[in-house]
């Protein structure tokens, strides 16, 4: 694993509604790596994920984010998506009246068009979706329902993984996709993510549970606390956190500048 990082975040400061949340985050993700981000509630994990995805509500006050050598922060969110960044939402959004299938199709075609590929015709698209939906063991009936409308918590999360499997992004960020899932669903999420693992792709998993990391084995684990990465390590860090809680990692780990880079 060498070369320039796919994603490199430097000294990122971001605020929402005037309130500073991220206070100097440093993180780099190379293609082929899986990073886990853990940390207490309210520490800024979703904020970080949303800033990378381009949510405008968050105001970036300092720092930089580069993605494949480009200045990510100057790109509108749909551009980032089309360039291969995918965020599985902590709270997937409902869109009444728009069927899941047509939403997936619009998304896939937008991404394919951007990559210079032809739009899939109805038959090809159906075939592909039916294959991917089996992968995430989701009820086909959900394809004809409105996007996330009336879906159970678990169905919403599976739906995010279905979108991930269909869109096949370069950099996938999963924001607590495992929360609220039973063990079977957890394995499905892991399967969806592991299928994407490849030397060309980067993955960031935000989670509270080391349990998920038994199935998606990360290369690095980071602890975000009060808007900074205060500890980074290998997967054993997750086990240690589970045992000892977050109390012992509060102070920024100055030894390695808050970033694990063996």
């Amino acid at each position, binding site marked *: 694993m060498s070369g320039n990082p796919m994603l490199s975040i430097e000294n990122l400061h971001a605020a929402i509604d005037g309130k500073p949340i991220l206070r100097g985050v440093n993180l780099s993700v190379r293609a082929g790596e899986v990073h886990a981000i853990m940390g207490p509630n309210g520490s800024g994990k979703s904020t970080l994920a949303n800033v990378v995805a381009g949510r405008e509500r968050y105001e970036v006050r300092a720092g930089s984010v580069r993605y494949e050598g480009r200045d990510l922060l100057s790109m509108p969110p749909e551009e980032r998506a089309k360039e291969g960044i995918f965020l599985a939402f902590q709270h997937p959004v409902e869109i009444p009246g*728009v069927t899941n299938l047509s939403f997936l199709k619009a998304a896939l075609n937008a991404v394919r068009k951007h990559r210079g590929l032809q739009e899939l015709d109805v038959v090809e698209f159906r075939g592909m979706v039916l294959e991917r939906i089996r992968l995430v063991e989701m009820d086909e009936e959900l394809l004809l329902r409105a996007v996330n409308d009336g879906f159970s918590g678990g169905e919403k999360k599976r739906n995010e993984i279905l979108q991930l499997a269909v869109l096949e992004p370069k950099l996938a960020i999963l924001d607590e996709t495992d929360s609220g899932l039973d063990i079977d669903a957890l394995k499905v999420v892991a399967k969806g993510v592991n299928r994407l693992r490849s030397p060309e792709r980067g993955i960031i998993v935000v989670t509270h549970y080391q349990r998920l990391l038994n199935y998606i084995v990360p290369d690095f684990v980071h602890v975000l606390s009060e808007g900074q990465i205060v500890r980074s390590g290998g997967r054993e860090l997750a086990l240690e956190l589970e045992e000892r809680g977050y109390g012992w990692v509060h102070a920024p780990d100055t030894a390695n500048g808050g970033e694990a880079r063996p």
Partner: protein
Amino acid sequence: MGNAADQVKGWVDQEYRWGFVTTVEADTIPKGLNEDVIRAISARKGEPEFLLERRLKAYRHWLIMIEPKWSTVCYSPIDFQGISYYSAPKSLKDRPGKLDEVDPEVLRTYERLGIPLLEQKRLAGVAVDAVFDSVSVATTYQKELANMGILFCSFSEAVRKYPHLVEKYLGTVVPYNDNFFASLNSAVFTDGSFCYVPPGVRCPVELSTYFRINAENTGQFERTLIIADAGSYVSYLEGCTAPRRDTNQLHAAVVELIALEDAEIRYATVQNWYPGDREGRGGIYNFVTKRGLCAGNRSRISWTQVETGSAITWKYPSVILKGDHSVGQFHGVALTTNFQQADTGTKMTHIGKNTRSTIVNKGIAGGRGQNTYRGLVKVLAGAENSRNFTQCDSLLLGDRCGAHTFPYIEVKNRTAQVEHEASTSKIGEDQLFYCQQRGLSREDAVSMIVNGFCREVIRNLPMEFAVEAQKLLEISLEGSVG
């Protein structure tokens, strides 16, 4: 929505795509309104005496009427003497028997609008009556329909060819003294479409009228009359556009539908009159009276409307449920952006026993648009076991637009059941971001969300027009968020 507004500001202003003007030599009656003008219109059309008498009666009644002020729309007073009440391309003075006698400019106009009239190019599955200012230019598929006994032609032609049907049904649903604009229309109407479907016949194609206002300072006062005789079925679609101009133009139509026993009429409108510019200059005043009469038992009338155009829309397609077990439906989408105003809805009057009505309205307001739903459900004493279900949803696209709902309910029969559901929501920043995160542009996200919001209504439209309506919504929405 601050951020959304900022981003949207950068969008290119979308021009109204149907705003061009056709240059034709026209026969136009000078501006102004008096009995002589009415006589002149009647004479131009070679009308029988009874029709002229009705026109004059309506006119004399209109003179003593007062323009309605109860709706939420506001506009500067209309100068009824500043309008010309008749304008027709010269070549159509006597309606040409053959299409090759029609001014080629007029034919080209319809081609540009996507409505080819020439036999070899005409739309499959749709018979079109094309109305240009005050006259009908051409009607396609007429012969094929006539073979089944279906009479489909311009109103003027019907007056000449089937005066008895016209005399029997005209004004039976919307009487000459119904309301200010209907009375005006009854006095000065020029052309429109006429359709009669004989007993037991299922009309195999969509019938449609395309209204085009071209001339300046004219009003369009069209009159449409559709009669579905016992056990027959017809589906009808109306479309309309006008050139872009800085002055307002009046369109005051009257549409009457009559469904006899076991007959069904489905009437769909995709209304796209010029809405005015971004500052609210110009645009069509669309003051329309549309009403259907379920005259026979088990008859059905359904109105579906998608209203994206006009500076002001004032219309309430209604159903009088007279026959027992008759069914009335209204499905409407009204979109107002920029400075557009819409006061629209429906009226369902239950008279017969076991009558049913359904109302589904979706109002969308963006820019500084004002969108009002106004509906009346009236159940008369004899309407045993009648049912109504009403659902009104409003979607706000920004902070400077407004949505209002006025549902009126009058029930005089205790066995009746009337249900009303309403909601107002704002297009969510989280919904937009979710779509954008999946690669959709903001425009595409807005139109997808709006289309989802309107789905129940759009899917009531015949297939081809559903696609048209979706496109139209998309275009009308451009730049409307924020």
